[in-house]
């Protein structure tokens, strides 16, 4: 729908220009060889850029072609657009467009300032008399209307998350189905303890601003509490400095909470390298030399995923992986013992801790899926009846 407005504008311009084209035959063509300036443009107008969502720094200038462009002497080369602050003031050239063009978008105006525009046709030697229009002012917009659907659905989603969180806090019994990969995390840690070997926990190679990393740190806190109790060493290699320091805080805290602050060893939370494959190589080295019996890869992973999973398999470790990076899931699924697929990574933290805040989010996401399916089905049904505008409403930018 948004796309319609320029079309309407174009139709309007064409309609307005039509009489000028019709009148073209009445102007006497200049004699050949005579270097008269071209005829001026007509019906010049300028207005705040139609798109509702700009920031007030654009003004659109439109006109109808000079009679010498295409017809007449046919010698127009280009149009020069000038901008000034007052009527009749000589302005600076803000743009030139080739012959045959009837509009120009000035993207460099100061919002709120009044401007005048001159447009003159130029034939290589001389300029036509300028046509002038104004004043026109670029208006700033405070809301990007094309993004309204995003706002509406995000608000709905947040309302659901917060409602469910409140419910969970009041002790409502919110059911969450069992996630098979999850129990495997605890089993894996248990087995490492039995074997007296360390647990390796890789929180991905994402930066701390990646939500997968945050989800991973939440699970890390849970895992650290178990290893603290079992007195099993927990090795956490990281590829980002900030993730390393956050992991240190999380693990230290978890050990303190579990009542074993002395078991915490800062040397086991390690920064290795920001470089993807330097990190991958160094983690492989840890697997081969320190022989962890359980490898947990939870967070954001890229191509290094398979390098970890295959090296870990070679050391006969139990491996549990989880990531929302779709392109890496196939490798984890084939090479690890259990894999948390996509959203299961986020659900995992809720399931493990049974904390109201996490349960609330999980429930909110679930019902948002129902809403999404509803919108989709409605779109499909409507399209059966030839109504396509509904899906179009979601076309945002």
């Amino acid at each position: 729908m948004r796309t319609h407005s320029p079309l309407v504008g174009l139709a309007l311009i064409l309609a307005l220009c039509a009489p000028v084209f019709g009148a073209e035959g009445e102007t006497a063509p200049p004699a050949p060889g005579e270097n008269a300036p071209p005829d001026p443009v007509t019906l010049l107008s300028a207005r705040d850029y139609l798109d509702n969502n700009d920031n007030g720094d654009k003004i659109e200038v439109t006109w109808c072609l000079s009679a010498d462009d295409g017809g007449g002497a046919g010698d127009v080369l280009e149009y020069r657009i000038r901008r000034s602050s007052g009527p009749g003031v000589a302005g600076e050239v803000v743009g030139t467009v080739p012959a045959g063009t009837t509009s120009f978008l000035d993207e460099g105006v100061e919002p709120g300032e009044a401007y005048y525009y001159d447009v003159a046709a130029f034939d290589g030697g001389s300029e036509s008399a300028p046509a002038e229009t104004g004043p026109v002012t670029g208006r700033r917009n405070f809301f990007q209307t094309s993004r309204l659907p995003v706002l509406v659905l995000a608000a709905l989603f947040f309302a659901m998350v917060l409602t469910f969180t409140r419910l969970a806090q009041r002790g409502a019994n919110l059911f969450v189905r069992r996630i098979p990969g999850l129990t495997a995390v605890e089993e894996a840690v248990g087995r490492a303890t039995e074997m007296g070997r360390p647990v390796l926990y890789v929180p991905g190679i994402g930066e701390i601003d990646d939500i997968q990393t945050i989800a991973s740190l939440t699970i890390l806190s849970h895992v650290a509490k178990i290893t603290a109790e079992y007195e099993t060493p927990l090795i956490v290699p990281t590829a980002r400095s900030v993730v390393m320091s956050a992991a240190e805080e999380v693990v230290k805290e978890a050990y303190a909470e579990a009542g074993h602050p002395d078991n915490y060893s800062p040397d086991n939370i390690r920064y290795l390298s920001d470089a993807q494959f330097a990190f991958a190589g160094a983690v492989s080295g840890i697997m081969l030399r320190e022989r962890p019996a359980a490898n947990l890869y939870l967070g954001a992973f890229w191509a290094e995923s398979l390098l970890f999973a295959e090296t870990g398999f070679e050391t006969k470790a139990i491996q549990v992986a989880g990531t929302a990076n779709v392109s890496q899931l196939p490798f984890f699924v084939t090479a690890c013992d259990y894999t948390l697929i996509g959203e299961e990574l986020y659900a995992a933290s809720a399931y493990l801790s049974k904390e109201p805040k996490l349960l609330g989010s999980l429930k909110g996401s679930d019902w948002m899926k129902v809403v999404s399916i509803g919108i989709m089905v409605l779109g499909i049904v409507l399209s059966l009846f030839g109504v396509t505008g509904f899906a179009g409403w979601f076309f945002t930018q």
Partner: protein
Amino acid sequence: MRREIPLAITFLVGMFMLVDFFVPHTRVSAVGEEMKQWGTIVIAASILLGIGNLIRVHSKKIARRNTGWGYSIVCLTVMSVMLWFGLWPGERLGPSPLVGTIAQGSYFNWMYMYMDVPLQSTMFSLLAFFIASAAYRAFRLRSPEASLLLIAAIIVMLGRVPLGQLMTKGLPEKATLPWLTEAIMTYPNMAAFRGILIGAALGVMATGLRIILGIERSYLGGEK
């Protein structure tokens, strides 16, 4: 106060960035841009935290003569040398374009091009071997689901190489391996990934909301 101030700031900053998406007004987006810039600077400033950790872990290893302490010397030495090449203020050494710069032809650039790049891309290429061994041991017709995985993988693998094209040459177009490959990639693959994407996106948004509202603090440690 230790608790409330950072939570309040987190809330304000988070909400501002959220609102920024919907407001095209310059005043808002300029501040948003500036804050994004700050974010990258904070991250860049943090790198010393990591390097400090690296130095601590390896120096301890060397001091205690733990197994492999020799390699720790390699790691720390090469790091110091490269830092010196990259950061040493040039004027103190006289007009030397090879040190204190990262331009092409400097020692720093040589080390990057002929040590870092080949080592990393070779490690990357190890995946060619691992993809084969993973396929061999994991692609078993163990269950109906595993069989689907296996069959889809085999069709696509064949459809992507000339040999696969030859195998079904002459068949009608919609029975050839390359066509089947495209069909699998375009339909089941896309539908599945779209579903995973939607689910994961909701997880991202919910977690983001919790962080802004200060409900999620576990990443800071010291939650309770």
